[in-house]
């Protein structure tokens, strides 16, 4: 049976952070603790893709198991409950209060140790990068650690049988569709389905109340001493994106007046230039 593990990260919704709050604190970090969290968008695409695959597999009579894992604190549990409500079988949290930003090999290690020691899944699926760390390495490192192939820029998965999946991914200059035997890691980038469906309250009542499986790092045999975030990255500079208007607003009381300004100041010179260059 194909068992797919969706690995996801919960990130701060930086759209909610006001520009004046983009300031480094005494630890040289931007404080995002006041900002509501959200699914990392690429992971969200991957999870929805898994659910669509499950819908399709059902009609083919192919059995499939969907599990989900995240690394983080209790703040992530409501997201895992949502996945339970959506029909995910196991919802797993690897307890970690530390900041793993700029440490993708640690994240990948925790996921692969869980798969090898406990979960036994034969497909891992996740977004290609996170909104905050933005390393783009976790799926590749997970594949390397497990010795599995990694297919990147995945945009579609379809059921084939109990051992194979049909994977569509973007490649240089085109789209590639191949039938691949498990196990493998799938990395999802810009996918056509980017929003996760929403469970009904009945789904939440019926399925979302199941307990979350929580594992400590020690239970996964990971005893690596944490490197302080400052050893991995130091914030040096923060600059807001230039939000100046790209266009020019032409002022005038009437449309005629505005059109006259448009012609006089912006079009006339260009038209004359075109005329000069046009030698029949």
């Amino acid at each position, binding site marked *: 049976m194909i068992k797919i593990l969706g690995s996801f990260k919960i990130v701060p919704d930086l759209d909610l952070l*006001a520009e004046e709050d983009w300031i480094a604190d005494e630890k040289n970090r931007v404080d995002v603790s006041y900002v*509501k969290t959200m699914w990392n968008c690429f992971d969200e695409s991957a999870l929805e893709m898994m659910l669509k695959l499950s819908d399709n597999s059902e009609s083919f009579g192919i059995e499939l198991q969907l599990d989900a894992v995240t690394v983080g604190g209790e703040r992530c549990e409501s997201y895992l409950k949502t996945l339970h409500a959506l029909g995910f079988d196991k919802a797993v949290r690897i307890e970690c209060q530390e900041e793993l930003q700029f440490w993708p090999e640690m994240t990948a290690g925790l996921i692969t140790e869980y798969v090898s020691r406990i979960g036994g899944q034969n497909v891992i699926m996740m977004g290609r990068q996170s909104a905050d760390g933005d390393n783009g390495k976790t799926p590749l490192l997970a594949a390397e650690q497990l010795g599995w192939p990694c297919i990147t820029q995945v945009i579609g998965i379809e059921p084939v049988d109990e051992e194979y999946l049909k994977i569509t991914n973007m490649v240089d200059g085109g789209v590639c569709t191949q039938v691949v035997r498990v196990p493998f890691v799938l990395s999802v980038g810009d996918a056509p389905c980017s929003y996760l469906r929403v469970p009904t309250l009945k789904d939440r009542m019926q399925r979302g109340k199941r307990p979350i499986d929580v594992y400590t790092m020690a239970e996964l045999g990971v005893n690596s001493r944490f490197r302080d975030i400052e050893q991995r990255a130091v914030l040096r500079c923060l600059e807001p994106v230039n939000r100046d208007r790209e266009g020019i607003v032409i002022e005038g009381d009437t449309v005629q007046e505005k059109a006259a300004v448009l012609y006089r100041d912006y079009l006339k010179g260009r038209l004359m230039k075109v005329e000069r260059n046009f030698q029949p």
Partner: protein
Amino acid sequence: MALSREQIVEGLENLLGADRVITDEKVLKESSLDRYRKFEQTHEVYTQPIPAAVVYVNSTEEVREVMVFANENKINIVPRTGQSAIEGGLETAALNSIVVDGSGMNKILKVDKYNMQVTCQCGVPLQDMDDMLREQGYTTGHSPQSKPLAQMGGLVATRSIGQFSTLYGGIEDMVVGLEAVFPNGEICRIKNVPRRAAGPDIRHIITGNEGALCFITEVTVKLFKYQPENNVFLGYTIDDMKKGFNVLRDVMAEGYKPSIARLYDAADASLHFDWSGDSNVLIFMAEGPAAIAKATADGIEAIISKLEGVNAVDPKIIEKWFAGLNWGPEEIAEEKEEILATNNIGITTEVSGCWDCIYEIYDNACRRVLEEVPDMTLMGGHSSHSYINGTNMYFVYYYNVVDCTPEEEINKYHNQINRIICEEVIKYGGSIVHHHGLGKARAHYVWEEYGSSFYMLETLKKAFDPNNIMNMGTLIPIKHNDKNPWEF
């Protein structure tokens, strides 16, 4: 004989010039509805009669000319400014309507700091005006969630209210004077005075008329000192909604005037906060002169400190969250994308009730919606505007649209939820509309809402709009189905 679409357009072009009479099909379709039919709007499905034209007026005189033309020819007019309506008020319910857009009347006419009042045309965006005033140390005190979109004429026409209402009041408490044009071409100006007792307060004929009596062209509202440096935020989790309503009541009854007094149930809170879990959330902001802000915050804290089951949260969380609450075009575009991808849609309905029934209204409506409407993904709400005798309830609900077309959605889901909420509110003697306007959907419950006072509303309509050309179907419904009023 009724004019054809072509004749209507020709008549309008003669009045305003062709460049201000828009007949582009896409514009006309988009102007046939508002966000009450959000699912249809998202899918670009248009079930309402498409207007003959959208006209952009630039002066009171032009409004008058268009109104007289429409009145003489019995053509339905839908007045609009910022287009942020969400209760069907902007739907063109009659064939060949004219949408009269006042957004071009966007001049701030006078900032009178000595008399603490500002006069502007109907199309002035509230955000622009308030930002400009704040730079000078003043504010209108009006801050609805639609602030980035809404304009002054529409805000007055719909009897809007802002997030700081508990201190500053609703728009009706802010409006000093007005200018409006009636269908027969009469231009009425109500002068700016502190108060008068010369008969009924006729501002209230205009405020909240929802474009069904007149077109508002000019507005004067009060000014207040803007002193954000004195703001004090307070936030709490609270284990019980009934207890939460009692806290709001005690704060009001003891005489405190926080600018914000909000109570979120756990479901609604989950949309805003990660930390609230299964708890309800209470939020306050005290503002004004430093000593008053401090005294208000201290008084609220004293009331809350006596209660069990209440835990304080870091006020900075509340302050940061509140700064990002408003909705602009970006949020609307993002929401559209999300609805199309997930078929999950979120809508609100706001009502009010006295302290002795607001919990029952909240509790019964939530329970019944969950029992009677399929595919619900969230049902909850918050109270965000409190008064000495009661408060509002802002129901927030999400559902998955399953097994129906965009055309069928409104009757399968939205109208059913509206019906349940209206039934529960009427049963307990509350008001079915707190601040979005009756629009065209809840207009079907106007008789139950008004009771014997419907006579006064009907008389106003007949007196000021005898030809029934003003925003037909708003306030008083057309095509009313007596047996199933929620089906339209």
